[in-house]
């Protein structure tokens, strides 16, 4: 967002721009109350919520990138961030699949608790990375 000091705008126009910023802030606050990840309880539900939440942002990102009236630097920025964040979600799901396999192996007595502890820590790590990836994509789709 351009700073007002760099704009050649009058009082009424400045008020309109400020009103726009207020509206954007209200929208962001409303969005924060929708939290599928917070609603999830099990690791599987959390991974699903993260991945599906990411898809919602991807849908918004796709619309903005395809919109030729959106400034080109904004569209390029979204493309760049998306290229970096989608592999994180891919890796989250791959790590979760590994975790599930080890959990079943432990239940069948085919592996030890230490293996599951490692898989759980690995999954937790990728959940954190996925949450950061979602924040990064949200930042470029909402604030640029």
């Amino acid at each position, binding site marked *: 967002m351009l700073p007002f000091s760099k704009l*050649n705008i009058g009082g009424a126009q400045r008020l309109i721009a400020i009103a*726009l910023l207020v*509206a954007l802030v209200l929208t962001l606050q409303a969005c924060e109350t929708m939290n599928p990840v917070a609603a999830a309880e099990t690791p599987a539900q959390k991974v*699903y919520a993260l991945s*599906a939440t990411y898809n919602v942002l*991807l849908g*918004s990102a796709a619309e903005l990138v395809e919109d030729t009236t959106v400034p080109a630097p904004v569209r390029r920025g979204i493309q760049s961030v998306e290229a970096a964040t989608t592999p994180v979600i891919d890796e989250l799901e791959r790590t979760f699949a590994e975790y599930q396999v080890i959990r079943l192996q432990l239940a069948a007595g085919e592996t030890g608790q230490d293996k599951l502890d490692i898989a759980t820590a690995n999954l937790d790590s990728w959940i954190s990375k996925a949450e950061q990836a979602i924040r990064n994509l949200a930042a470029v*789709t909402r604030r640029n």
Partner: protein
Amino acid sequence: MFASIAQFLLAIGTAVAARKGGDTADLVEIINLGAKLLEVGTEGRIALEALTQKVQRMVQEGRDPTEAEMADVKALRDLLHTRIQSVVIE
């Protein structure tokens, strides 16, 4: 409500653009981009509400997502990723 705000902002952007005299290009750009972000935000908000309700139902039913549900999410992600990266921006 957010859709109305978006329409309002788009109307203002159009009106400012039509006004003669003065350097209003940056302001028009800000207003129009803001309106688009609000529109996108509205759709995203509805989708997040639906997703939150779906996860809450999973919790209430005491179940994890099925393989088909996980596969659907992955397929949509792949589709959107391809859509975003295939756009050529000049």
